[in-house]
């Protein structure tokens, strides 16, 4: 009988302890911030224009900030449409961003001839900044290296930029 009473007391005690755990509670705050989606839209392409080359070769440079074209070496600039690539960025006002080039150097391929390609080292302006009330123009220029015996013709390539919130 005494043992049975002890078991009953233990059982009651267990029930009481379990009851106190089930009644415990706590609170936590939940919050979320929705920011304006970051968008990047291409406006213009990077165009080095027309030029000729001679022994020794040289470079054609497109300024990332204003699109101005210059040359070095034995390259002679001719007409044609020239300009920097531009992208329109928009995002949450007050947030900072960083833009990166998927490839800092790209290859422009021709339709034939030797050498068949040229390489361009790309540059950017407005690579970093903070969004305000209006969109931001991101410019991409580059330095195109031209061989002295580069074959005449049209060369094309592509470039890509990625923008992230900091």
């Amino acid at each position, binding site marked *: 009988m005494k043992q049975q009473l002890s078991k009953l007391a233990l059982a009651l005690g267990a029930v009481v302890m379990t009851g106190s755990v089930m009644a415990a509670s706590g609170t936590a705050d939940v919050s979320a911030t929705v920011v304006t989606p970051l968008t990047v839209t291409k406006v213009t392409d990077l165009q080095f224009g027309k030029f000729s080359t001679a022994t020794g070769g040289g470079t054609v440079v497109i300024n990332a900030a204003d699109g101005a074209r210059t040359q070095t070496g034995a390259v002679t600039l001719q007409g044609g449409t020239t300009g920097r690539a531009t992208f329109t960025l928009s995002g949450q006002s007050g947030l900072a961003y960083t833009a990166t080039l998927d490839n800092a150097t790209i290859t422009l391929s021709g339709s034939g001839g030797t050498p068949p390609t040229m390489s361009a080292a790309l540059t950017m302006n407005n690579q970093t900044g903070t969004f305000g009330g209006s969109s931001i123009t991101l410019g991409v220029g580059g330095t195109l290296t031209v061989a002295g015996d580069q074959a005449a013709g049209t060369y094309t390539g592509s470039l890509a*930029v990625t923008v992230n919130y900091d």
Partner: protein
Amino acid sequence: MKLLNRPRYLTAAAVCSCLQLAHSWAATASAEATASATIVSPATVAADAAAQLLFGSAPGVLTLSIPGSGSAGSGSGGADATGTPVFTYTGSGGSGPGLTQLAELALGDGTLAGGQGVSLALSGSEGDTVVAIVAYN
């Protein structure tokens, strides 16, 4: 007690997952552009006979004649009081060796006053072919 707590952990983990997905979608964007360049044939220098440079009757006035089967263009030029060359030329197109565009003008030593020697270098392009003409008088 483990059974009682487990659902709370699962719920918290699910919420965190959703927040991360939403943040990821809004924080990155990318776009692509093309790059292009056109190389034209190297410049060539034509014989002197390709162009004829004449002095006009008035000091500082140049007349340029470019032979060829292409349609004739028109040009006018001269120099200002300091001797700085001023010359414009507008081609009218056509086929053959006639120039369709003159891009730049460089004047050698000398002035445009009648009777003095002067050299005139012109360059331009016809289609994708660069053309240079050097004329002497």
